[in-house]
């Protein structure tokens, strides 16, 4: 179980953001991507998840092995916690909804509609969704936004448990996640350079 | 000069006037838009060139 990225370049809106990026993540590891806003973290993760094509380079693991989670949780406000999780479990051909709710401390809220959850509870539900996908590589974009300290700690435990099962996690963030064992990859050195020549053809970004 | 258009003079002339006006409008629009874009691009390119030369 390994994700190997070699010489990857990604672009957003036709503008190259990252180039020459190579790294590897294998089972049991967590890798934190760091970089200022606009450095292409989100674009990189969306490219890995197969939502947009890379400009260049190879990604060894197919998107089918990754569980992607972004700022929006993909939750329906009029469905209950259990219904939301059951849906995503069914889509991925998995069960284990109860275990996921237990792990994210949501069992007591199982029959509450998502619109009546607090922001932190919603975020936990979004992370519980990752557990029911049954995929080994988690690709997480700012996973701890709007979580309080206790919830961040809980999140750390969930990721750690996932790593212990042989899973891996790729996280983009600019705040501390409370995962001291995670490797850190700074995206700064991979910032794409603008080609100096502005030939007519190249102007077609 | 004007030919005898008979009973339908109004209709025939109207058809010609309207069609030619529409074509003129279209040509004018394409032309004006082309000129505006060319000007804007030229202005930008001069600015960028000056910037580049200034930095070197």
């Amino acid at each position, binding site marked *: 179980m390994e994700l190997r990225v070699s010489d990857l370049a990604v672009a957003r809106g036709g503008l190259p953001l990252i180039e020459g990026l190579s790294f590897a993540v294998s089972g049991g590891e967590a890798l934190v991507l760091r970089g200022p806003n606009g450095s292409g973290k989100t674009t990189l993760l969306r490219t890995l998840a197969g939502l947009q094509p890379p400009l260049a380079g190879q990604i060894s693991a197919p998107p089918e092995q990754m569980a992607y989670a972004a700022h929006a949780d993909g939750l329906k406000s009029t469905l209950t916690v259990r219904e939301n999780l059951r849906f995503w479990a069914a889509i991925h051909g998995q069960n284990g909804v109860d275990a996921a709710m237990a792990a994210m401390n949501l069992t007591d809220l199982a029959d509450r509609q998502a619109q009546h959850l607090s922001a932190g509870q919603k975020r936990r539900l979004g992370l519980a969704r990752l557990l029911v996908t049954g995929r080994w590589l988690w690709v997480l974009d700012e996973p701890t936004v709007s979580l309080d300290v206790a919830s961040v700690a809980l999140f750390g435990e969930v990721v750690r448990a996932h790593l212990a099962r042989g899973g891996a996690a790729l996280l983009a963030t600019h705040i501390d996640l409370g995962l001291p064992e995670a490797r850190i990859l700074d995206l700064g050195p991979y910032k794409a350079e603008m080609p100096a020549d*502005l030939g007519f053809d190249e*102007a077609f970004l | *000069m004007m*030919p005898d258009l008979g*009973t*339908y003079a109004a209709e*025939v002339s109207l058809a010609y006037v309207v069609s030619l006006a529409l074509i003129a409008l*279209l*040509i004018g629009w394409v032309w004006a838009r082309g000129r505006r874009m060319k000007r804007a691009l030229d202005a930008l390119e001069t600015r*960028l060139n000056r910037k580049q030369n200034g930095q070197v």
Partner: protein
Amino acid sequence: MASLWEYANPVKFMQTSGWLMPVAAVLAAGMIAVGLVWGFFLTPDDFRQGSTVKIIFLHVPSALMAINAWAMMLVTSLIWLVRRHHVSALAAKAAAPIGATMTLIALITGAIWGQPMWGTWWAWDPRLTSFLILFLFYIGYIALWSAIEDPDTAADLTAVLCLVGSVFAVLSRYAALFWNQGLHQGASLSVAPGTRMDWSYKGPLYLCMVGFVMLFIALVLAGTRTEIRARRLRALLTRERAMG
């Protein structure tokens, strides 16, 4: 055939269109001027339709270009989807307003012609109806282009719309035929049934048709040049912003 794709390169296209466009424009102006003057001043009246027959020199060429413009958009959209040449997508974008204007001219001249012939400005004749529907397709296509910010996304989505729209436009044509058998003459080139059209009609008509084709070519080339410039302008601005 390989050499044809050279023109998909923007630089090459700008060079070639730079001299081709004025040539087409001059040809268009000459042919349409001669054709229309010949048709308007020198053509005899039809024994049945009187002088209204002179509308044919505008009606038929514009109708021809209304359909051919869409056909050209379909082909260039396919080229964009398959080979991803930007010039192709931009040419489709440039052709749409021209095609829409041609459709409008065909509709208006048709209505004006219909007034004395059928006694009404508008009849839900299948051919007129089909053109009205075609006009709606043009409007939708143009609206989709202008609604989407990212140029590549817009090119992709409008190309799909053009493909799907073409199928439904043809279906609509048959639906309109089924729905009303219509007042239009079978073929537009046989002006009065039973009489062969003679050269005093054919001459200006053919001249106008070729002239409209030239006009279309000149306008599409001019429009595509503008779109290429707009695209480059956008690209340069984005890059400047990114470099700070």
